[in-house]
């Protein structure tokens, strides 16, 4: 068994490798929020940190630290070793001058150097996460300097593409060889529902625009009435009715895919001085390859080798799955050729994960607002008074107690720091692994009302 088994189920070996190779930069005084963040990151398997430590201790923090010796106490949490290099805060300018950081986390820091505050979008700086927590409130703000591309966004539910409306030869032959009229009620009950849907589509042929209701009606009026009158309670029939929409061509993802391709072309034109994050660079090349591939394949994306389980006999399901696997393999070979004509260095594993997730690709655009602007813009007060108060506390400005903000003064809540520490580390994980979708770009936690608000600012 692997120490990381429980999280490998969330992001797989490739994600875990990216985490264990990463280098995290932390800027700020030693607070419980900073300790909690580092602890969570060490636990997921990150071992390299550089900490620009400011010595300004915030009021009452010293007695409220869980780890009396953070660097020492982190060692048992990662047997590969944990290296936390401490640097004086005066060296913070190094962050914007090269540095191989994967992420920069700024926690409760008051004095941020101009280099970082004014960093322009053309610079090669890692994503910056800013954060602070007071009382039952906390915020995070993520500043991206280049677009963040995600292949495995891992949605809860994915509509499978069976290509029933545009079958390739092997699929068409397999389906056509199943002759419904020669099968008895028991054999009919053993057919996967996608066979029934394919047959319904064939029956409707040559009607040009088929809709969901027509498919459902065909299942009742043709399949049940004419082919299999005893099939009304069969589970495959039930599934066919329930999932009838998968028989329709899905145009929505094609539209958004074209938008992503267009967006990636813009990225390619703009990023003439190269990418900071090699992963993003690879996705851009893969999307370029995809646009070439789509043109020569009538707009059809690569077939996914895995089809979801469905009521069926083992034999027919196995055969049908093989048809999809064969085509997926064939498509992958062809797509890989296109990719390697553009760039030979992209790994087979990366190409395969891209192929399987074409419909899940997401991009988060760079943050236009500069960090200085985020910290000083008075208009933020209108958007979010809570955020504005949090920033005042962070900058150690005088905050007058009013009826609206009195809950900020109820004293420190260690759990709030722990919550925000969890949140920061989760965003770090998503950004480094390029899996799941990060917060874009500001989030406010209100523990009083159990409320989370996120918005783009």
């Amino acid at each position: 068994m692997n120490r990381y088994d429980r999280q490998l189920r969330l992001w797989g070996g490739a994600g875990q490798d990216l985490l264990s190779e990463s280098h995290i930069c932390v800027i700020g005084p030693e607070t419980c929020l900073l300790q909690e963040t580092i602890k969570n990151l060490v636990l997921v398997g990150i071992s390299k940190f550089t900490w620009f430590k400011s010595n300004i201790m915030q009021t009452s923090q010293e007695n409220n630290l869980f780890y009396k010796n953070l660097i020492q106490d982190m060692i048992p949490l990662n047997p590969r070793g944990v290296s936390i290099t401490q640097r004086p805060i005066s060296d913070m300018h190094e962050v914007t001058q090269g540095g191989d950081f994967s992420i920069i986390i700024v926690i409760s820091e008051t004095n941020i150097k101009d280099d970082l505050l004014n960093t322009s979008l053309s610079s090669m700086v890692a994503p910056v996460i800013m954060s602070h927590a007071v009382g039952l409130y906390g915020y995070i703000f993520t500043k991206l300097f280049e677009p963040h591309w995600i292949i495995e966004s891992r949605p809860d539910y994915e509509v499978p593409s069976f290509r029933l409306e545009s079958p390739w030869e092997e699929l068409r032959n397999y389906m056509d060889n199943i002759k419904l009229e020669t099968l008895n009620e028991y054999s009919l009950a053993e057919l996967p529902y996608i066979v029934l849907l394919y047959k319904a589509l064939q029956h409707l042929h040559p009607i040009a625009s088929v809709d969901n209701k027509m498919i459902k009606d065909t299942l009742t009026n043709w399949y049940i009435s004419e082919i299999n009158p005893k099939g009304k309670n069969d589970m495959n029939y039930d599934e066919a009715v329930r999932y009838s929409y998968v028989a329709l061509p899905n145009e929505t993802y094609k539209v958004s895919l074209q938008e992503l391709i267009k967006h990636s072309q813009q990225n390619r034109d703009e990023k003439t001085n190269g990418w900071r994050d090699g992963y993003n660079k690879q996705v851009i090349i893969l999307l370029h390859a995809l646009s070439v591939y789509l043109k020569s394949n009538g707009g059809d994306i690569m077939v996914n080798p895995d089809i979801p389980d469905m009521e069926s006999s083992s034999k027919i399901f196995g055969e049908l799955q093989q048809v999809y696997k064969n085509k997926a393999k064939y498509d992958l070979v062809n797509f890989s050729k296109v990719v390697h004509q553009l760039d030979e260095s992209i790994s087979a594993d990366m190409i395969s994960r891209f192929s399987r997730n074409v419909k899940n690709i997401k991009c988060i655009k760079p943050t236009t607002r500069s960090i200085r602007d985020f910290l000083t813009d008075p208009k933020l007060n209108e958007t979010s008074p809570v955020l504005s108060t949090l920033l005042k506390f962070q900058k150690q400005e005088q905050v007058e107690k009013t009826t609206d903000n009195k809950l900020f003064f109820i004293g420190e809540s260690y759990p709030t720091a722990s919550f925000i520490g969890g949140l920061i580390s989760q965003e770090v994980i998503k950004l480094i692994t390029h899996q799941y979708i990060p917060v874009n770009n500001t989030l406010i936690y209100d523990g009083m009302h159990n409320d989370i608000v996120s918005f783009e600012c």
Partner: protein
Amino acid sequence: MNCSVLVLGAGGLGCEILKNLVMCNVSSIDIIDMDTIELTNLNRQFLFSDQDIGKPKATTAIKYIKTHFPNLPIKLNPLVCDLTTLNNEFYEKFDFIISGLDAIKPRRFVNEIIAQIAHKTSFEKVIPFIDGGTEGLKGHVKTIIPGFTACWECSINTLPKGQDNLPMCTIINNPRNLKHVIEYIITIIYPLGSIKWEEDSIEDNTDKIYQNILDASFKRAKEFNIDTNELNLAYVMGVIKRIIPSVSSMNAMIAANTCNEFLKIYHDLIDVTDSGNIQANNFTILNGADGCFSYSFQYERLTDCPVCSKLYS
């Protein structure tokens, strides 16, 4: 904070909850867990390390706190046992119960106990029960105050229906994937219920059982032409133990949320109306897979709830 809190479970959530309560200076904390530490716990259960594998979770967690805070004026008490074997007299001692369990049965048990205590004492003793749970990048927190909010049982229908309960016909006659194959092996060939795990808890023996299940799974998968690319011991154990993914970040967030609920009740920050109802969002769900989304709402109690309706008559 002068009060006595019972923490249910010393796993991912339990370690976080215990740490938070210590940092809040709660005067007395009991923590109960019957399990021992395993390697796969160590990606989130930060009070344990490699040399603790095999030791009981509750005592090891308390030992960590006592070692790192030698002069802590907090009463700490670990319990290594099945919490469903303890009676009302035990639970009555506490002012709050915070749970970080992964099973349904013990939660229902505790929920019923606190309803009984509130009923028996005519609301002299009302123990708030705050329940957290996680699955991957998702989680929930439920706050239960017997007689004032919906109880745990009121929302039992909101639990996901056991989708894992595959029809026997599929498992026996039409297996189509590795899950179906393994389910067959552990129901028909080596029925899990009949395996004597406890009697011989030597690591080797457990490994042997898993190896046998794996071998039998390979054989059956071949018979039905099912792809065995992904089949290995970790896969088999995932199916057998119904393993749910878990990560430090979401654990910390949910545990923190339960503790903030505790702080709010303790400091009287939650409004109770004249009719005795709580004016607060007692249910929260959290999802960090796409941005970070939370939904908090007031879950209404079931008027015919078999557990808590008697409190209102």
